[in-house]
Each structure stands twice: as structure tokens, then as C-alpha cells.
């Protein structure tokens, strides 16, 4: 789950949600579904509507129905989808994410796309950045992939990780040695 905007709201209510997911597990001898967990949060923030809570979240997981991603925000919106980005830098992340996304991404390709998209947001948005955490959720639960320094990704790339092209993500590095100049052909001199 990822949070944005007002840190305390996200930190507090996400902890609270985690607590109730655990209670669901203890009471029902079964993990809560992604749909139910997200609805728990959306109903909760909806009860505070108009009082100034500010959150944008994504609840991601794997249950009996397979993989699922839900977008839940503080005006009570809850959307099921397979691609979301949230926060002040989300537009920049979408730019990279949408263009690189297709349903058949391999694990490594998906991780690289996520990393590259957050780099884009961290690079272009003043309120995003520093480092990026990457998680991967599969049938057997979530796995922490790594923490990546945005500046390091800019200059040196994410390091030796599967899926990365090698080298920095920065524009200057990507276009090094290329030129848009188009001079007319020089007449052959005798």
C-alpha cells in the first residue's frame, strides 16, 4: 500500500487497516480479500468526508480471485483496476507507466517499469523523490525488492538488478552522442 499528501492520515489509517486485516484473519481463519480490505478503508474515510482528511492509497494484493489493485482516496472513491498511480507526482509516473505497460510483463519487466516510473516522478516533481521502495506481490505474498536512490538512478542506474538496462536513467545519458543537427551535404571539393 502506498500513501500520499497528508502523511499522518495515511500512516495512521494504514496502520489501523493493517490491524483490522489481522483481526479478520484471527476471527475468520482466513485472510481478508483485497476487495474487502479496500472497502473497509473506503467506508472508513467516507465516514470522515468533508472533515479534511487527505489520502490517496492503493491496496494491492492476491486473494482467491487472483491479483487485485484498488484505488481508494479520501473523498470516498474506490476503484478496481490493473494500473494506478497516486500522489503529486502521479502524472509523471503515468507518463512512463502507461507507455511501458502491457498485460504480459515478466516479473523483472514489471519491477523495472515500476522503478522507472517512480524515478520519473521523483525527477520531475519537487514533492516526490529521495528514494523509491519497490515491492512485488505474487500468489505467495509480498516481497520487498529494494530501496533505490533517485539521484543514483539518474546518474548510475538502479545497480545490478534484473530488468534494468544498465546505466543511468537520466535524459542526458540516454541521448549521449546523438544530435539533431541536420546540415546540408557538403559539396565534394576537388
Amino acid at each position, binding site marked *: 500500500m502506498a500513501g500520499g499528501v497528508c502523511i499522518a492520515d495515511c500512516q495512521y489509517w494504514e496502520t489501523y487497516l493493517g490491524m483490522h486485516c489481522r483481526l479478520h484473519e484471527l476471527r475468520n481463519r482466513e485472510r481478508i480479500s483485497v476487495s474487502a480490505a479496500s472497502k473497509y478503508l*473506503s467506508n472508513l474515510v*467516507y465516514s470522515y*468526508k*468533508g472533515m479534511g482528511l487527505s489520502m490517496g492509497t492503493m491496496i494491492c494484493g492476491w486473494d482467491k480471485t487472483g491479483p487485485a489493485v484498488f*484505488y481508494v*482516496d479520501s*473523498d*470516498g*472513491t*474506490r*476503484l478496481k*483496476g490493473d494500473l*494506478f498511480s497516486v500522489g503529486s507526482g*502521479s*502524472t509523471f509516473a*503515468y507518463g512512463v507507466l502507461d507507455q511501458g505497460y502491457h498485460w504480459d510483463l515478466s516479473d523483472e519487466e514489471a519491477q523495472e517499469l515500476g522503478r522507472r516510473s517512480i524515478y520519473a516522478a521523483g525527477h520531475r516533481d519537487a514533492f516526490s523523490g529521495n528514494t523509491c521502495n519497490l515491492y512485488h506481490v505474487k500468489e505467495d505474498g509480498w516481497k520487498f525488492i529494494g530501496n533505490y536512490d533517485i539521484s543514483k538512478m539518474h546518474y548510475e542506474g538502479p545497480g545490478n538488478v534484473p530488468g534494468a538496462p544498465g546505466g543511468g536513467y537520466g535524459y542526458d545519458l540516454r541521448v549521449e552522442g546523438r544530435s539533431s543537427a541536420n546540415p546540408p551535404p557538403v559539396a565534394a571539393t576537388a
Partner: protein
Amino acid sequence: METSFAITGKGYLIMAADTTAARSIVKMKIDEDKIKTLSPHLLMAYSGEPGDTVQFAEYVERNIRLYQIRNLYPLRPAAAASWIRRALAESLRSRKPYSVNLLLGGYDTATHDPHLYWVDYLGTMAEVPFAAHGYGSYFALSLLDRYHNPEATLEEGLDTLRRCLDEVAKRLVVSPGKYKVKIVDKDGVREIEL
């Protein structure tokens, strides 16, 4: 911008609503279904304040279902519309009103005719032969005044709906991309690709 239309014709009703869910300048989703099937012969298109819309629609859905379970028959369109309008009107006079606009379309199996109700968040209700909500309405209503035919066949009705959507696509700056179209008639509800 959110837009929805509904048209009645001979023995049927067509309802269309755009499928985008937007937040500020971002489209968060492009295939969101904003038309709920409340009962076998009743449709409801909803739009308005994010959060309120789905909460209110699910509240209505469950109460209409409850009536059916208790009484073994569903509410007829006029009765359902009255109940829903009343729910909005009472909400308007509460501390936190629902800001939701609706189009309610149903087929009355007792009288064999379609009914359409235009309802807004203030609890205003009107029974009409065709209706629209959102910016699309500024283009579609005049068009429907000119082209709507209460005796149109389903194909003709769909042609008229197509005219509406094409006009909105042509003239509205922030026109929606895709629409979901549903039909209700004597056979119940079905979804079609336009």
C-alpha cells in the same frame, strides 16, 4: 466531464453513461460502469460527487433488493422513483447530503411501457421521454427535441443515441471517451456495444 443520457422508445428504454472516473486532471479509470441494475426491469445511471455516487447507489440497490425479498415482487418504476427521490430529499435536509444526480429508467411489466425519470441531487424529479445529465445535456436535449420519436424502433432509438454521442464528441471540449449502453425492455436488462 461526466455525462449520461436516456431515451424511451416503443417498448424499450436505452440508457448510456460515460465510463471515465477522473480525479482533478487525471483519468483514473476508463471502463467504470456507472449504470446500476436495481431490479430485473430497472436501471439507474448516477453521477456527481466522488464517493457519494457509489455509496448512494449501493444504498438504493440494497433497499430495492430488500423490498423484493420481503414482498416477493419488485417495485414498479414509478414507486421506485418516488422512494429514491424521497431518499435524496431527506438527505438534502441532513447534515451531510448526497450530491448525486440520477437517471432512472424502467420497464413496467404491468402496463408494458417504459418510464424514465430525471432526478437531481436537490430531489427534483420529472418524468420525461428522454433525459440527460452533465455537460452533454446542453447539446443532447435540443437534439432530442428535434429527433426523438416515442414510436421509434430499437434500431432507430439507437441511431438517435448515436447522434447524441457524436454531437457531444464533436462539440464538447472535454468530451468523454467511451460509453456504456444498456437497454431495458420486456425481456429485462441487457448491455450492448454501440
